[in-house]
C-alpha cells in the first residue's frame, strides 16, 4: 500500500521538506521524483498569480488523481500539494513527489498526476500585471488535454 499525502493550502510549499519527509526512516525506496511548478514572471510583466479553487472538490479531485496513480504504478509513497491564493513569481504553485523502488514508476506516476491535475483539478489562474493593466484569466492549453489523453490505456 502506497502512502498518500494530498494537501490544498494557502501557505508556501516546502519542496525540500516534502522530499525529505517521503524518504525519512525508510531504506526500501530507490527512486524519488519531484515536480515543482513555479510562478513565472512572464518577462517581468507579472506581479502575481491569483489561484482560485473550488474548496472541497479540489481536495477530492487531487485525492482521486493520487489514488489512481498509486493504483497504476508501484509507488511506495506519493505526495501532491497545491497552493491557492496570491502567488508571486518564483514561488511554488504545486509539488508532486513520487517514491518507488525503481525509477520508471516514480517518473510516470509524477507525470500522470501533473497531467490530470492540470485538466481535472478545479483551480483557475488569474494574472495580475505589474503595470496595473487589466488582469486576465489564464486560458486552458490544448497541449494539456493532449498530455492527459496519452495516459489512456
Amino acid at each position: 500500500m502506497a502512502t498518500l499525502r494530498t494537501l490544498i493550502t494557502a501557505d508556501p510549499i516546502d519542496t525540500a521538506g516534502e522530499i525529505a519527509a517521503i524518504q525519512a526512516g525508510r531504506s526500501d525506496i530507490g527512486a524519488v521524483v519531484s515536480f515543482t511548478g513555479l510562478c513565472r514572471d512572464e518577462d517581468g510583466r507579472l506581479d502575481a498569480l491569483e489561484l482560485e479553487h473550488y474548496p472541497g472538490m479540489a481536495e477530492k479531485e487531487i485525492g482521486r488523481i493520487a489514488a489512481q496513480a498509486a493504483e497504476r504504478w508501484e509507488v511506495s509513497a506519493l505526495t501532491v500539494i497545491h497552493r491557492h491564493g496570491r502567488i508571486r513569481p518564483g514561488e511554488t504553485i504545486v509539488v508532486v513527489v513520487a517514491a518507488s523502488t525503481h525509477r520508471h514508476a516514480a517518473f510516470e506516476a509524477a507525470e500522470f498526476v501533473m497531467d490530470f491535475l492540470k485538466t481535472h483539478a478545479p483551480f483557475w489562474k488569474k494574472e495580475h500585471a505589474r503595470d496595473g493593466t487589466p488582469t486576465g484569466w489564464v486560458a486552458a492549453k490544448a497541449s494539456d488535454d493532449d498530455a492527459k489523453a496519452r495516459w489512456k490505456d
Partner: protein
Amino acid sequence: MKLRYFAWVRERIGTAEETVEPPDSVATVGDLLGWLQGRGETYAFALAEPDAIRVALDQDHAERDAPIAGVREVALFPPMTGG
C-alpha cells in the same frame, strides 16, 4: 439546488453562489445550462460559449447528458488552469 460559479463564470454572472429551483423539464446538465441562459443578460453572457463551460455535480465532473435529479450542488466553471 445550490449553484456555484468559479473564475470568469463567477465574474460574468456576478455572484459566487445562489439557490435555484429549475422546473421539472430540466432533467440534465445540458437542460440546466439552457435554462440558465434564459435567466438574464449576465447568464447569457457567461454561458455564451457552452463548450467553454465545465460542470461538476456534487463535486464530480459531469457531462452534458448527466441527470441532475437529486443533486444538491452544481458548479459551473471554465476549463481548469491550475498546476
